[in-house]
């Protein structure tokens, strides 16, 4: 055993250095470069983008949890509300489609502080 260790000192030392470097890389991947752990953005999207439903989702990756939303038919606001979406969670907002939408555009504007996002459907 001692003889084996003596013969393989260099190989084992090199292997250990490589192992430690790789361990640091995986550690950095988990704590510094992990896109799944990001916490400074949020997004909105339609629950069903292909049909006429206006239900939409807020995906929150910020620690602030309160959002304000407004719904417009062309330039006229027809609904609004406040919603709480926990950090790293999604919140579904169910919204009834107004009458007389043909040829018009329904815009959903969501805001948090000064940030604002908008999605829309043309009818």
């Amino acid at each position, binding site marked *: 055993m001692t003889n084996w260790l003596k*013969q*393989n*000192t*260099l*190989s084992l*030392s*090199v*292997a250990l*250095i*490589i*192992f*430690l*470097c*790789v*361990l*640091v*890389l*995986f*550690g*950095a*991947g*988990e*704590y*510094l*470069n*992990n*896109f*799944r*752990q*990001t916490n*400074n*953005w*949020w*997004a*909105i*999207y*339609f629950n*069903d*983008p*292909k049909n006429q439903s206006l239900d939409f989702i807020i*995906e929150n*990756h910020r620690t602030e949890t309160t959002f304000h939303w407004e719904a417009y038919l062309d330039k006229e606001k027809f609904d609004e509300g406040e919603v709480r979406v926990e950090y790293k969670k999604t919140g579904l907002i169910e919204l009834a489609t107004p009458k007389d939408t043909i040829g018009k*555009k329904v815009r959903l504007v969501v805001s948090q502080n000064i*940030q604002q*996002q*908008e*999605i*829309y*459907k*043309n009818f």
Partner: protein
Amino acid sequence: MSFIIDTLLLFLGLGILVMIPGWSVFRFFGLGELALFSWEKKILTFGLGLVTLDFLLFLYSKVNLSITPLSLLIGVGSLFILGFLVGRLRKKEQLAAPTWKFSTKHLLILLILILATGFIKTFYLAGSLAPTATDLGHHMYWAKWLAENHQLPVYEGMPDFIIGEHTLFGSLNILTGLDFFGPFPIALLFIINFLSILAMAVLALRFWKNNHIALLTILFLGVLFAVTSPQAKFISGGVIGNLLGNFFVPLIFFCYWRAFEFLESKTETSLAQARKIFSAGIFINFGLFYTHHLTSFIFLFVSALTFLIYFASQGKSLRIKLKRFFQIIFSKEVLLTFFVGLIFFFWVFTPTYVQTQAVGTAVGAPSKNTRAGLDLLDMLKSIGEARLALGFIGLVILFFSWQKEKFGYALTASWMLMIYIMSSFPALLFINLPSDRIGNYLSYPAALLSAYATFFIFRRLTDSLYKKTIWILFLLICVWAVSEGVTESINAIRNPIATEKLAQTFSAAQFVDNHLGDNDQVLKDHNYLTGDTWIKLFFMRGYTYPLSRSLFKRYEDETKPREMCTLQMISTPDTPEAKECFKKTAVNFLMVNPQFDGAQFRRNKNFNGIYSAPEIAVFYRTN
């Protein structure tokens, strides 16, 4: 703390998939009978293992056997038993030990150099782990395809991808479940790159049988210029083929060099040993051909010049050398390895670049400025002033101290000269390939020759009458080399990628994937989205799915006219040309950066804005 488990999984996976097959083949070739250092054996085992894994999967592909954890374990287990039995049956020969040793001082310096190499590379890579690199994204698509479909990809006929670039990544994912989006691909490339530097040190050690030159080689290749291409930058960029090629080439040269020791008049290598190590070289050579065509192409040119110079310089002893050479070649071990390799190459699994005759596109008059050759300034930028200057000084010293018997002299000189000619004067050899890509390969022989030159100058100092003056000059050269090498690395270190942008891209990709129907087609932008190449890993609907608006300059490249639809459908969706393109391609999902490409869709009634985040928006075409 999952990163500890992931690290252990990676090493366990490499142990099972690479080291065990490598160990078996090492015994199969009977390489234990050669005088090898322990670390030489480990590096050679790793190289043999990578190639063996490829061949195992080719065999599975031929007999339509799925690549699953079980089939991988059965394959590796069978190889283990085979290696064990062959080792037992093989006639025991006296194991020779290397005739020289590393002193404790040299061992310590070696470990410090290796530690420094690891530290610099890790420091750089720690900020580049997020999955954003374009090349790596393309490669990981195929690795994921292999893992999901449990078979080898045929690349939709594309010659740019070669199977050896993806087998290890795909198999490791199958066996260990390591995430392609995590640090695993970069960490694996880091290991391969690290081993390529050690392989060069092994090569230097064997060429000159001198510990100092081996240590200096690590200094010039590993510690200095540790980040610039083709080192850590290639790792973070996912230039898999080059990195693997740069590992295989020194190993192949090592094997051939050890075999050619038999040709020397005072040799310690027996014919049997020469045949065994030559066979191992051929085996790894096939591994190279299965991994990277550009490296293989360069390797063939370098080898041709090496053989030419070596045999041409033999003079009267040419006949004896050729006789001994043919004694090595015409043996059952060598011929069997060669023909088994050929059978695999042409009948079991043929690389796509052979099927599509991609070689034809690499030969001919340069078709672009970037293929017309590097000038001296480009070369200095690519290799580094100090390394290039010392490399050429080393070449001159090599010629003046030429030993025609030593294969290593011909090999080192040819390696440097041929790559220099290929990258600076490609027209001389009718080569039509990007010159800067070839130029990157020069750093390996340049490091070897820089080490040789530095050692040679250093040794001469001890005999000189003007010791002090020359010492000062020598120290200045060292300071110049070290400062340039370290500065290059520092300049190359970039700010960490903003992972928020990446997270948004992947969130949008997941959203689109959740709503994709069979007839839907997606177009995304490559200019303003972060990590867009990786979007295809969410869809897994083909390499060219989603379609992509490429870098703008590509649409203006007159030497390579290309389709304009991907540009028009995002940049000018209102125009009749774009409308025609939408009809033709059936694109209905568009993923763009809203700050640069949102306005043209918002004012168009045929598009709904269905996803919105600060860095990415998705539009859906309704009409």
